[in-house]
């Protein structure tokens, strides 16, 4: 359990918070984020083998998502799928893909047209985890209201489905989860673990096809992670 502070070369991104970082073949792709009143729409790639940053340049006339932060991203089928976030004046609910299974100079943004008429309301600070071909979006906020709904975006069919969840013994799971992580064990079982910060002091998992919440009990020692 060693910390280190490596030297990195190349185009180091500016100071940044609330961006996404997506692993693609030992490269970390950073999109969006911001600092203070500034919002970014830039893409940087960090090669973890050579420890080198590279800024991705896109043609000026190519389609491109607006600046945003507190969005989410998952990697599926050679593309990074980006959902939601906020641009400083409003929350967003658009979906974009960045084609990344190609040389960096060929990377390309595409706006995803959602099939059907169902879609989550505009939101940031939600979580998104990929389970097989489904991007599961939990909670979030539009700056006024916090959400507790769960949406499954089928990335093959480009279809959003609202999950009807059943309470499973623990009332607090219904309050707005924020910031999730997905454990490798949970992936195999098809149930992402949702790490919820601030609003609920616990970890809950939702089984996405049994549609049930489960609260994983924890004991605290002196360490509280938030």
């Amino acid at each position, binding site marked *: *359990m*060693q910390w280190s502070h490596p030297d990195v070369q190349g185009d180091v991104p500016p100071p940044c918070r609330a961006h*996404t*970082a997506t*692993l693609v073949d030992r490269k970390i792709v950073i999109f969006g984020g911001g600092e203070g009143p500034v919002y970014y729409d830039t893409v940087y790639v960090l090669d973890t083998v050579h420890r080198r940053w590279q800024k991705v340049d896109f043609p000026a006339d190519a389609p491109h998502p607006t600046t945003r932060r507190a969005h989410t991203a998952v990697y599926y089928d050679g593309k990074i799928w980006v959902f939601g976030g906020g641009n400083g004046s409003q929350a967003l609910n658009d979906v974009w893909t960045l084609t990344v299974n190609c040389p960096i100079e060929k990377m390309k943004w595409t706006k995803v047209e959602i099939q059907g008429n169902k879609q989550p309301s505009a939101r940031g600070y939600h979580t998104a985890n990929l389970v097989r071909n489904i991007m599961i979006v939990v909670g979030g906020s539009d700056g006024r209201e916090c959400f507790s709904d769960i949406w499954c975006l089928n990335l093959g069919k480009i279809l959003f489905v609202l999950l009807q969840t059943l309470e499973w013994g623990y009332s607090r799971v219904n309050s707005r989860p924020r910031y999730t992580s997905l454990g490798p064990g949970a992936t195999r079982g098809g149930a992402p673990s949702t790490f919820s910060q601030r609003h609920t002091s616990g970890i809950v998992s939702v089984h996405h096809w049994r549609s049930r919440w489960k609260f994983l009990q*924890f004991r*605290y*020692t*002196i*360490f509280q992670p938030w």
Partner: protein
Amino acid sequence: MNNPLTHRASRSGLSTRTSRSGRATPHTLGQTSTHPNGTTPHLPSSSARVRLLPYLPHSKDSEVAPTVQMYWSKAPVWGTMPNHGMRAHSVTLVDPVAWIFGGCDERGCWKDLWLFNTGNYVGSPSGVLFRLTRGLS
């Protein structure tokens, strides 16, 4: 072995133990140990050491809980540690190494990169690395 970190080897909740009266009793949830920090009483040297409760190096006084529950405890980290707070940063796991970028604290946002190797090794004053017993990852 005198390394206390290896004492976690027998944290199984399925083990039986020999009580002070010499009678083996199955471990049940919620059972409290006769020893305040969870170790078994001193046994003859021929007996195996059995630990019924997890050893929490940084929290000797935490409440007794069933071993099937999970515990938070502070990780035994070493190396060049971050010199500022972080929130809204990103953490990307590449094999055992977490790559941590950006984020902010009350002073502003950061553009630096930190690596945290989650491998189960800890340093010692002699420079020798000890491996923790199988636990996280």
